[in-house]
């Protein structure tokens, strides 16, 4: 099956955004837990 350039670019942006969002959100949550429990 052939894919157009637009589909490939959208997949690159979509997959990267989801994966990076999960990593940053995970780090944010863990640091939030530390902040909440430290006070």
């Amino acid at each position, binding site marked *: 099956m052939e*894919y157009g350039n637009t589909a490939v670019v959208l*997949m690159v942006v*979509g997959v990267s955004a989801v*994966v990076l969002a999960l*990593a940053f959100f*995970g780090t944010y949550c863990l640091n939030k*837990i530390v902040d909440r*429990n430290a006070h």
Partner: protein
Amino acid sequence: MHLIPQSWSHWHILLSVFPLVGLVFVLGFYVTAFASSNEAMKRICLVLFVILGLLAIPTYLSGDHSMELLSQNPKISQDLMSSHFGWGVTALAVLVLTGLTALIELWRSRRAEHLSNDALHLVLGLALITLALMVISGELGWDINHHELRMDAAAQKTPQAWSHVHIILNHFPTVGFVFALIFYIAALAMDNTVMKRASLVLFVICAILGVPTYVTGAASMWALSGVPGISKAVINAHRDMALVTLFGLAFTGVLAWIELWRFRHLGSFSNLSLYLVLAFAIITLGVMAETGHRGGQINHPEIRVATDVLPTDPKAGWSPAIESLINHVIWFVPWQTVHFFGFSLIFATALAISLRVLGFWKSMPFSAVHRLLPLGVFGVVINVFSGMLILFADSFRYLNATTFAPKVAFITIGAIAVLYFSCSERLWTVKAGEDAPMSAKWVAAVVLLSWAGVIMGGRLIPYV
């Protein structure tokens, strides 16, 4: 899968890895117990030495009976079996002695508060001698029935070292998880913080070792392709389960690491998270047992029974399907991009933390930069999965690339070294304006060099 082995050879394959690989892990805990002066942990280790000593009996009996059966097989070298038997019996004898010494010390100190240091050191010395003898015996044992170790190295499709490392390495996450679970359950029951942390560290190490185990397994697949008597369908069934194992190891390892990180900042564990780690570890161990069983069926026709239904279609299963899917540009390019993002996260985090340890931006306490660490660990997780998918796309080419083996070795070293940042007591107390201890600086240098090596090794794959 038949849960209870139905032949002496099967029993021997299962049992014989515990005295060797198990001893490595018990010794690791034992040394930790000495370093932290934790009496409860020392006692648990002594109990485990006794159990390992007892295991010497079924290991010997199953080995002796296996030898009788395998002697009738003309394809198996009698000299190799005799050498394995000689070294094996010697190793098991010293193991029994180690277990007996541990038992005497446990009995002697049952009412005393402290264990005798002389006896503890004697157990340590005997265990180290056992380990050395076991390594020789194990190496000779693995040579007996593994085609890929006896084939002409020049004629193999992938470097023989990969297959050799896989045969040894695959036992570490499996047996390591058994011992980590024993310690972990004991730690939860005794509410012993040092033991909880040591078990969590072991879960993380086993998860990290899952990466080289999986990669070397892919190389062994190529080494065994086309060998008479070896079924590609049976290999694929093993690969599929290994994929599930990798997920299980990653989930358990990350959860365990998060608890280590949280403990560092809060000084206490979350009970919910601790039991979540336990649940994941038990599930992962079950999956690993099935993976190991399927792996054993590749090279060991002697453990098969009449009721075993072996797969026959080499194109069935998830692994061939993923191989076909990831070769489409729409799947490959996004995951390759994610792989580069993963490296960026890992290197940025490693750089920031390592530079603080090495003496840069001293105005910040170490605890402040330690907060960044989850980002790097998530980067590792991202790259394990994206890297595994990329490997699926063209495993033959990657595994034969000169710089791929150093890259995998650097991943393992770099990831294990990062654990130090969440475990060291001295480093944790480094306040703003203070210098980190020299040992921490060495670890920081190893972390930086390892991850730089990973990036360079990966980038050179298409060219060298």
